[in-house]
């Protein structure tokens, strides 16, 4: 937390979507940091120690999102991770998000109210 507000790290290579997320999350009372790639996301995670992470599934490469989640796990991540996905993004039909340890998966286009509700619930735990 910073200045009494929770810090959320948003990782997506779509600048428009990041812009939108930032506006929606700041309106919800959160501090937002952004990263434009999985690699940058991992770096910022280590530097900033966010309270929650939102990542897109497909970024600069296929499965970048799931790779990031795995890297976060290896880096000892304990905070909730939400994944943004277009339905059917993942190349592997047999991928189970529960097995990856994700806290939630949101289908794009993301409903802002649903996202804020989920974030609030996850941060309260």
């Amino acid at each position, binding site marked *: 937390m910073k200045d009494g507000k929770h810090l959320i790290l948003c990782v997506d290579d779509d600048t428009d979507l990041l812009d*939108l997320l930032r506006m929606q999350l700041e309106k919800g009372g959160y501090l937002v940091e952004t990263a434009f790639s999985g690699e940058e996301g991992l770096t910022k995670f280590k530097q900033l120690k966010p309270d929650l992470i939102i990542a897109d599934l*497909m970024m600069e490469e*296929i499965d970048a999102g799931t790779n990031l989640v795995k890297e976060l796990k290896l880096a000892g991540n304990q905070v909730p991770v939400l994944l943004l996905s*277009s339905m059917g993004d993942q190349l592997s*039909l*047999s991928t189970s998000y529960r097995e990856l340890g994700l806290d939630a998966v949101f*289908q*794009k286009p993301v409903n802002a109210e649903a996202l804020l509700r989920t974030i609030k619930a996850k941060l309260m735990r």
Partner: protein
Amino acid sequence: MKSRLGPDLILTHSLLLGERLYLFARLRFAAAAAILLGGPFASYVLGVDGLDLGALAAAAGLLSACNVGIFIAVKRLSHREESARKHRLLVAVAHLSVTLDYIVLTYAIWLVGGALSPFLAFYLLHAILAAVLLSRAEAYGYAAIGYLFLSLLVLGQWSGAIPRPHVSGAVPPAGRFDGRLVATILFVYGLLTLVTTVLTTGMVKLLRQSERGLRSARERLEHLADIRRSFLHVVLHDVRSPVGTAVAMLAGLQSGIDGPLREPQARRIERARQRLQGALELLRNLRVLADLATERLEAMMAPVDVRAIVRDAVDDQLDAAEQRRIALRLDLPSTLPAVRGIERLIREAIANYLTNAIKYTPPGGQVVVRVATAKASLASPDAPTRSSSPGSPGPAGSPDGASGADMADVVRVEVIDGGPGITREAQAKLFQEFARGPGAEAAGRTRGIGLGLSIVRRIAEEHGGRAGVVSEPGQGSTFFIEFKVLHA
């Protein structure tokens, strides 16, 4: 295109050599038994005199003893992948076993009469076996070796170097071993060996070529399918991603993120959002179709929790239902038998039904999602199955879900809407590709090709189940999808 298994191997030969050797090792045990039992049979049933039964038994024993080692070796290597890796070892085993066969064969033939025995024809059988087992050059080599053994036996007996056994009944009575007879035997068997080997190796070569061709074609097709799938995924993502972002930005505007909208602005933005949403759904369906086209779906299937999938699918639709003031009710049993499938496709099918139900139910109405176990019905595909779930006894009247689940063939998911209902004529075409229900225009749907229900039907079929609808005009519709239960 080079095979992944190795560049220089004759693929089908190396792949199947282990299996063939394993088969012949088992047949060799039968051959040893035949030699063992054939002696007494010939002596006591056919009335052949002078057979050395002890020597025949020894020949059978030698064959069996050597075959045990061969059998153990090839059993481990009979799997195709192992067969390709240990090709040289298998070829050595093949040489050893063919040599063993010729030695024992020659000895056994000598025991039952030698050069004049009808059993000489077994040399041809072994020439055929060598042609099937080994390469063409090796087959000719072994046919020549077999002919050499035969010639040694015949010439040896004619010259007196090999004693003639005193067997009567299986061979002509002892008499002059005419040189012309020897020449005729050698000529006939030589010719037969050559012709048999040429024909058999020729046929085997053709078979191997066609097998190799089929295998290459299949690998090429799989490779192309992989490329096509990857291409499609990337293309769909590259179109879907900006469209999805555009929808999100419009939704953001609608939520007042940049301030309140005037009425005409709000209306136009809503129309734009709906049009883009329709395009997103089309892209989503195309993506699922691409997934369904993969041949390896069966291999990707795993036990799935249908209850969790249905719950997730319903949660995803809560906002859309709320926007249209539609009550979304979930009726789940406390337990469900396991189903084998692909979680994402099952969720896609249920999401498809839910999206339609929410769109076609008038505001203020209700959509119910019910999950139950059932026995698959042998009646027409549109007939409801006999359900067994709490609160919905089927025609068989089974009282509770737990006992029904023990006998259940399928897990049935129903989505019951409050829409206008569908006529019988329309129902018949509903699950076909590019078909749309008659209420589509009335419900204010944007124009577009109808893929969703055909995709649901295909997903059901891939899961060994079925999809359909029960509906009457004016009474809403029950869309169902069934998944085969995974029996232990």
